[in-house]
């Protein structure tokens, strides 16, 4: 089982969009996939039309008094299950702080699911906190969306430094630009410049497209309702590149219908 986490300190940069589309694409290729919506806002949960409710809330979950397997929900996409968000996740740091070795806690919660899933995707809330540290320790790779702006690049550098200096077993990093408008000179300059400077940045970029914005209305991943649109194609290219960079393998091969 491999664990990927979509992460950025900043909000509104495309973490959830990447998480749900990656999860749908992975499931479509036959990976038995679990998406854990760690963000108390519950956007990924909303997109899969699941109620943002976890029985017993964050306390029972983190203290391992709930059976994680009992909390999972199947989505409308074959091979893709969801561990929903819950508003109590806003207290995640407090609860983690009260446990022994909080940085290892997420990994231990996921351990029993290892034989049931090939891939777990964590959709993280925007912050740098105890939860982030636990994510860094348990994830094999961080998927980091960047918007093409100077400040965004600065926070990426901070993240690289933090992971390298503070994390015992640092995850691999795959960053990518999202919300890219190629008509804007600044976007072109940042994407090309940063792409050259950091080998972690993927070649594939996600365009600023109305297809992506429609996800909230459609309540499905864009790759499910507009797979041939610019955003759908971009997510597929990014996923393929991610699979290659992380050597996830060619995919178990079964392409279920993600509609």
């Amino acid at each position: 089982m491999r664990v990927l986490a979509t992460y950025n300190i900043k909000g509104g940069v495309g973490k959830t969009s990447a998480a749900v589309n990656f999860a749908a694409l992975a499931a479509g290729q036959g990976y038995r996939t679990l998406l854990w919506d760690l963000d108390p806002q519950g956007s990924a949960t909303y997109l899969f039309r699941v109620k943002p409710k976890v029985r017993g809330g964050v306390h029972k979950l983190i203290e391992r008094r709930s059976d994680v397997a009992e909390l999972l929900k199947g989505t409308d996409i074959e091979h893709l299950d969801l561990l929903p968000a819950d508003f109590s996740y806003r207290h995640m740091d407090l609860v983690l702080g009260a446990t022994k070795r909080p940085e290892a806690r997420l990994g231990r919660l996921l351990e029993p699911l290892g034989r049931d899933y090939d891939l777990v995707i964590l959709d993280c809330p925007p912050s740098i906190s105890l939860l982030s540290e636990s994510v860094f320790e348990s994830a094999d790779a961080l998927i980091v969306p960047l918007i093409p702006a100077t400040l965004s690049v600065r926070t990426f550098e901070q993240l690289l430094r933090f992971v390298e200096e503070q994390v015992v077993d640092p995850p691999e990093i795959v960053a990518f630009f999202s919300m890219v408008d190629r008509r804007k000179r600044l976007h072109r300059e940042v994407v090309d410049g940063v792409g050259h400077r950091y080998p972690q940045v993927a070649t594939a970029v996600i365009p600023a497209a109305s297809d992506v914005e429609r996800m909230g209305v459609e309540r499905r991943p864009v790759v499910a309702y507009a797979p041939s649109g610019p955003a759908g194609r971009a997510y597929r290219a990014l996923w393929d590149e991610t699979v290659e960079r992380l050597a996830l393998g060619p995919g178990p091969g079964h392409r279920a219908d993600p509609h």
Partner: protein
Amino acid sequence: MPRLPAPVVFALDHGTGERRLARWLPGVTVDGATRTVDRILLDTFDGRLHRRGLTVWMEEGRDATVLRLEEPGVADHTAPLAARRADRLLGADLPDGVLGDRLRALIEERALLPQVRIRVRGHSLRICNEDDKTVVRITLDEPSVKVARGVDIPLGRRVRVNAVLGYDREMAKAVAALSRRLGEPAPPLAGEALAAAGIAAEGVSSGVDVALVAQMRSDEAMAAICRRLADVVDDHRPGVLADLDPEFLHDLRVAVRRSRSVLKEMRSVLLAPAVARARVDLKWIQEVTGPTRDLDVLLHEWPSMVGPVPASMAADLRPLVELLERERAEAFTVMRRALTSRRFARAWAAWRELIAEPGFGGPDAARPVGELAGGRIIAVYRSMVKAGSAIGDGSPPEELHELRKRGKELRYLLELFGVMWPEKLVKPLVTALKGLQDVLGHFQDDEIQVRELRGLGPAVAAAPGGTDSLIALGFVIDELTRRQHAARADFSRRFTDFASPDNRRIVHGTFR
């Protein structure tokens, strides 16, 4: 582990379609999606999965192939299947993970072979909740079975209700609603498909199970056993010639060896000239099938044999494996020629004719079989105890091989004639004998394999990169020699069990 309720399938009559189902199931919507999947039912040639109530399908979808395990009361388990030979799946071809591990344990060294091919055209429906979220998946299946090129027989239509994880209550409601209209769940599709294609789910058996009573004439008992063993040979020979599963050959050879054993141990039932000719013919069949079987075993055990070879040298063994595979292909060609030759046909017809009718005319033909077989069991056991007791640390390997041969004869006597005595008395003896035979078997197999590999030395050396391969081969031979020594060290303990006072008492008290 996520707990997903098992799918429930109901049979449908011709009048029931999507619209009627929509009336019965509130909240159901018709997806409009139709998917056609080709499914191939897999099982070992001896029906191992069927016997355990399991159904395994290879599903060939539009984009990929999936292995699906169906088990009563449990959610289906699927795993993607990588490229493989179309006509069989060996343990190594099965996917990694839970499903592959489970099937590997069940089939052991056997292959999963195609039994029947069906095509299922499925129309998708789903039940949604107030958020338009799918909470139950339903498919209306129209299956047909392919019985010949271009000939498809339609099977009964079905509605299949699949749970969505975390929505058990909705699943239960849908199943209850359909139960009220459609009654009990339908029997498995695999059974209907096999019946329509006229295929026996039980597969080909190598069991003998001839009913014997102690007072039966020995010639009648012997003929019945030999006829059943000849049936096993005939049932397995097509599989051997098709080269689908090495175990066809294994089972065929066991049947021939058992026949030879019966001939030897019960030779006084027949007249001497008949025995002599049959022994020559059966020995010849055993000999022409031997090299292929030895190489099958060698290739099967190869992964465990090369375990101790350093990873850096693993690639050096590749030419050796290729050489073994070529040798095996050549051995198979020779064997196939022999098994389809006029000599085989004549020998087999003569053997069949000999065992067709009792009245063998030997001095013990009319003697009660319980008496004759019991006497042979005691005699062979005694000779084994005597021979085994004489084996010490310095004894040559031939003495262990000889003991193994006698052990096989005793085992076949017990397996074929043991039904005449209480199982609780025969079983402990068979268990002790198996323990001893395992050790002797390992000892001899390892020796054969060392000999086989040494024989390849010159060919390996002559091939490109031959020196590296030879060095790596040295590691393999070293490991085999180590294993052989371990088996030898275990002999004494196993033999002591076999020749224990308890077992001696059982033998002399039971079979006299």
